[in-house]
């Protein structure tokens, strides 16, 4: 019985060692979708599964003016009214840790 358990433990250990390299980095990720009422809802987070409450999310026009400076709420989401001008969404978790979402990549509802 003990031997069985030991073998199983070793197996699990080997498997986890094999998969450990997968979880090294945590890259920023952000997803935006259109919701009813001409609104856009963006959800931010990191690839290790953690949320991003309080992280900056700006809506920027194609002419580089910030249309809507925002921060994600406690649930890592931000909802805003769809701007009239052409825009992109910038999820900004620090220099080099950004995600850009162009308006063309936001799926209409």
């Amino acid at each position: 019985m003990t031997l069985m358990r030991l073998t199983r433990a070793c197996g699990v250990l080997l498997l986890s060692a094999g998969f450990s390299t997968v979880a090294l980095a945590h890259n920023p990720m952000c997803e935006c979708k259109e919701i009813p009422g001409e609104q856009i809802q963006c959800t931010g987070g990191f690839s290790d599964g953690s949320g991003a409450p309080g992280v900056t999310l700006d809506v920027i026009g194609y002419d580089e003016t910030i249309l809507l400076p925002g921060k994600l709420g406690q649930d890592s989401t931000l909802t805003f009214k769809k701007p009239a001008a052409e825009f992109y969404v910038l999820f900004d978790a620090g220099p080099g840790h950004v995600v850009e979402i162009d308006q063309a990549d936001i799926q209409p509802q």
Partner: protein
Amino acid sequence: MSKPAAATPPSPLRAFWLKWRFHINVLLLLVPLGFMPKYFADAALFRGDTGLGERVVGDVQVGPWSLKLAEFRNEGPRPDPAGPMKSFNAALCATCAEQVKATYLRIGKPRSLRAAGVIFFGTPYRMGAALPIPERTPVDAELWVTMEGWDGTMHQGSVPLSQASPATIAWLNKQGVKP
């Protein structure tokens, strides 16, 4: 009233197993040997003994500065929860290591310094960055390097993706460019 099972002689195979099982287990020690070539190749790659990466792209001129770019592995992007990621390594030129504050990498020309792409981290002699490859990347895309100096200046340079990573182009072709 169960009778104890009659002692039937074990089959020859079972007899062999019962006699030699502990000796045969010594063979398990050979199992790690099979993994060693890959282990040592990876160790040398991570340590930098085999160069900057598996495939050196060459020098990219960025204003007054330059960097040596290399694909960490000569393969297409690896899947990640944040989308397919391709790892690049880079080394700053000898004179610019002191002057450059940050180096960024992006597919397509950055809209602004804030959106300059992923940042390289590590020493100036061996930096690494994991670049997200959007599924809609055109095969004629350019890889843009943005460098920010300690003096506040910013310079940009680019290299065709087909030159930087033929494996990524092959991967994109296999995926089929999304509309």
